[in-house]
């Protein structure tokens, strides 16, 4: 424990020196703003949700000035790489494919089981038509399985596709689907779940090593004192550290 705090302190110090160039820099956090409870726009049009609380806390602990930006999911990685913002905090699961293009911090959620939502219990998950958001682990999973994949740009559209009969079921993170299934009588959550991905982490440019260490250290302290677990409970995301 003592050791951990020490390394954190040393890391923070050395990071501070290397980051002399970025002194006083505002860290821009990029998110999608359409994936409750992880991130969404509240009634006032501001970014809210689990990741809003988490991001603000992390920035406080790492002593960074942060600012929220929204970006479409489709182009969220290209815009990070070309420097329009510095961090992706958008419920992005850590996968090997993404890791080749960008870097991830340690995970701040455990792998959340992905669930299916459909209009009837006997939806055909093996050979039917399944909807998922483009460039997600769920889309990749369906493509590998025998089912027919239809992709949509936003999570909202995947749900609409099931409701109007275009797809038999949606595969998405369970925490996203649960409130939808609860509030809509036509939709039911299926029993079957898939364990995909390695949990969610912050995405950073591969060249941004110092920033990554700062966030890693901040996440570590939040795991340590249980404040991360509190946030997970507050937003009803499964899995505790």
């Amino acid at each position, binding site marked *: 424990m003592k050791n951990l705090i020490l390394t954190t302190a040393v890391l923070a110090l050395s990071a501070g020196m290397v980051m002399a160039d970025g002194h006083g820099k505002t860290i821009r956090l990029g998110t999608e703003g359409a994936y409750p409870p992880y991130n*969404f726009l509240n009634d006032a049009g501001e970014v809210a949700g689990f990741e809003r609380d988490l991001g603000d806390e992390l920035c406080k602990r790492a002593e960074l000035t942060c600012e929220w930006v929204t970006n479409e999911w489709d182009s969220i990685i290209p815009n990070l790489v070309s420097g329009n913002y510095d961090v992706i905090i958008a419920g992005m699961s850590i996968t090997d494919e993404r890791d080749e293009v*960008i870097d991830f911090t340690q995970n701040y959620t455990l792998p959340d089981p992905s669930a299916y939502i459909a209009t009837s219990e006997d939806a055909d998950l093996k050979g039917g038509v399944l909807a998922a958001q483009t460039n997600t682990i769920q889309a990749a999973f369906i493509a590998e399985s025998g089912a027919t994949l239809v992709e949509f740009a936003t999570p909202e559209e995947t749900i609409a596709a099931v409701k109007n009969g275009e797809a038999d079921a949606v595969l998405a993170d369970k925490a996203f689907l649960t409130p939808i299934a609860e509030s809509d009588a036509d939709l039911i959550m299926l029993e079957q779940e898939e364990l995909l991905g390695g949990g969610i982490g912050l995405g950073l*440019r*591969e060249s941004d090593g110092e920033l990554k260490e700062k966030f890693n250290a901040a996440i570590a302290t939040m795991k340590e004192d249980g404040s991360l677990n509190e946030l997970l409970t507050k937003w009803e995301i499964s899995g505790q550290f």
Partner: protein
Amino acid sequence: MACYLTTGKHMSIYTSVLTVLLLLGITAPIALAFGFGGATAARSQITPLRWFGKTYIALVRGVPDIAFFLFFVIALDQAVEYLRHKVLCPGWEAPIRQGNDFVVCQAAKMPLGNAPQWVHESYGFGLAVLTFAIVFGAFAANVLFGAMRAVPRAQLETAEAYGMSQRQTFWRVLVPQMWVYALPGLSNLWMVLIKATPLLFLLGVEDIVYWARELGGTKTPRFTDYPHGDWRMWYFLALLVFYLLFTRVSEIVMARIMSRLTHGQATAGGEAQRKAAA
């Protein structure tokens, strides 16, 4: 209901209507200027200038808008940052291209990393205006190029016979007469431009279509004070009405301009006006 329509989010959609109108208001004259420049260059006596004009028209007209918006804007942004990097940070050793990453020193960032969000948004808006102007300028150039050739040759020959120089013929005879031929094509472009504004979102500017989709999406009670089902249809219906009204107003204005331009022209329309007056 009144409370619902005045949430912060709804305020955003109202502002985005203004953003779109502002974009149209700024882009249209700039695009027209680009078009005029392109058309003039394409019919220039100077060979390289003519090539430049013709290449501009052919190239931009040929590339799909979406590809142009995605590629050109990122390239332009990076070019600006690259130049600033070279000037502002001469001592920088690390390579700018690191794998996929584009890394320049903090001082070279456009806009600066610590600039407030509105600066980022205006910068994105500026990029949008420029990109729209270049794309629609190319189409306008083609329209104006055709219009300039449609002016009866006899008019220009008469001007020359009066001893006007090339320049005088161009500005005093050709340009005032070409608008009547250009207007149908230009009004088409204007209509397309009105509808092209959702491309703004590709540039990170949140436009009306984005907000309509966001507001109309299903809202579950846990995350909002105003839960509702899929209302996108109603929001898009409102958009439809907005765009149709806008188109109608444009048509009326265009018809007025047309009847003004036709006045005294050697066209069928001008002839009809003369007879009606007589």
